[in-house]
């Protein structure tokens, strides 16, 4: 079955990102397809590679990047939500005159249409948030 997942909260403050991660790992193990993971609201903060948690804690951002690489996941960060919260890739940094970009590997910034499209193309959308 084709799943899409929406994540509405950032890492560490709320369990949403962890729950979504565990759900996706379980779904992939069962042979389901994850057609897109869409990060919205504070969920865009899952995409900053500047995250440096204590060494004895899970690195949520790196964990997403690694999962994306292993399973070729399409991880999309909403551009409007990202602009509000200071998440930028190279193109966004240039477009908005920022002196750096901070997006982690495996994530891409795109529009909200990607969420609606994921809803159209998948069999189920599961939302994790607060």
């Amino acid at each position, binding site marked *: *079955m084709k*799943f899409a997942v929406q994540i*509405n909260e950032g890492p560490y403050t709320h*369990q*949403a990102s962890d*729950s979504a991660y*565990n*759900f996706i*790992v*379980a*779904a992939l*193990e*069962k042979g*389901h397809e994850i057609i897109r993971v869409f990060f919205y609201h504070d969920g865009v903060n899952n995409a900053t590679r500047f995250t440096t948690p204590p060494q004895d804690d899970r690195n949520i951002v790196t964990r997403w990047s690694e999962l994306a690489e292993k399973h070729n996941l399409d991880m999309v960060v909403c551009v409007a939500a990202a602009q509000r919260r200071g998440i930028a890739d190279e193109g966004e940094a240039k477009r908005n005159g920022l002196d750096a970009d901070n997006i982690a590997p495996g994530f891409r910034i795109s529009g909200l249409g990607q969420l609606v499209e994921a809803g159209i193309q998948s*069999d*189920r*959308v*599961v*939302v*994790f*948030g*607060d």
Partner: protein
Amino acid sequence: MAMLHIVNKSAFGNATLNSCIKTATQGSSILLIEDAVYAAMGNTSMADIVKEAMNKASISVLGPDLAARGMDQSKVIEGISVIGYDGFVDIVAETDNVQSWL
């Protein structure tokens, strides 16, 4: 099969589970995850409401979230199924659609 309702908020201090129970139709499923798992325990003030809800909806609770919070699986209300993430995936696939009560 009707739909799956996912609730993630503690029922003590937040009315989400109550709203969900009132809205869920006959034959639907309710899954308790994250802070909502406490409501699955047999000895709380929510227990009667949850038991009542089981007349129309099948209720499950996410075991890993219970364990994380030190809740004893053997004290979960009888009839609520304790499932893992694989079971979570299965219910999502088996029900017609899914809604998270954020």
